């Protein structure tokens, strides 16, 4: 058994594709037109056959309520692992990305939390540099 897909709700699939690929740097894996919406997934270029992240329309009223409640309390809906959180924070801030939490050492990891512009917070995580 393997984990194949996980999803985030997004308020606009095109905007989400632009952000997750153009800004974050992930790659589109599947982009299949399905009437009003698309079957749209992205993967890490470092793991093209790895877990796919589905950018799923938040059409269901419960989805927007969930997004609002999670964002209000600052809770990320996904975690991306990166080599260096400080470097990614600097790069993404330069691209205009807003962070609710700057890079912060939390025990064995460094984390930061950013706004994906589609209604969600996403956490970046890296192992803390050995002391």
């Amino acid at each position, binding site marked *: 058994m393997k984990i194949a897909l996980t999803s985030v709700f997004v308020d606009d699939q095109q905007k989400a594709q632009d952000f997750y690929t153009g800004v974050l740097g992930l790659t589109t894996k599947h982009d299949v037109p399905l009437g009003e919406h698309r079957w749209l997934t992205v993967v890490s270029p470092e793991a093209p056959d790895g877990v796919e992240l589905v950018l799923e329309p938040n059409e269901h009223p419960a989805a927007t309520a969930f997004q609002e409640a999670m964002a*209000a309390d*600052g809770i990320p809906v996904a975690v991306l692992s990166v080599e260096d959180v400080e470097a990614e924070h600097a790069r993404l801030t330069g691209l205009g990305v807003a962070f609710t939490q700057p890079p912060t050492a939390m025990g064995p990891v460094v984390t930061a*939390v950013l706004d994906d512009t589609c209604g969600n917070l996403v956490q970046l995580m890296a192992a803390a540099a050995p002391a």
Partner: protein
Amino acid sequence: MDDAEDLVFRALADPTRRALLDVLVERDGQTLFELCTRMAGAGVTSSRQAISQHLDLLAAAGLVRVRREGRYRLHDLDTTPLAPLRERWVRPDERTDP
């Protein structure tokens, strides 16, 4: 005793709430998620719900300010209510303030 001071003493009379103030010293503008993460990092393993309730009591005492910024709810430390407590039992001849 003054009601407002009562709230401050009650707010301080709990180790989890004192730990929350320690974590709030780190920086202003923290979300509930960040506070919970920092609390876990400090070895305090309270539930998010419990921490949220502790924050309500700290806010009622005026020690935490909650503000809305866009879609986020952010928490700032406010130590103003502590100043009168520091002064209260200082004898007149020990006062250093003008």
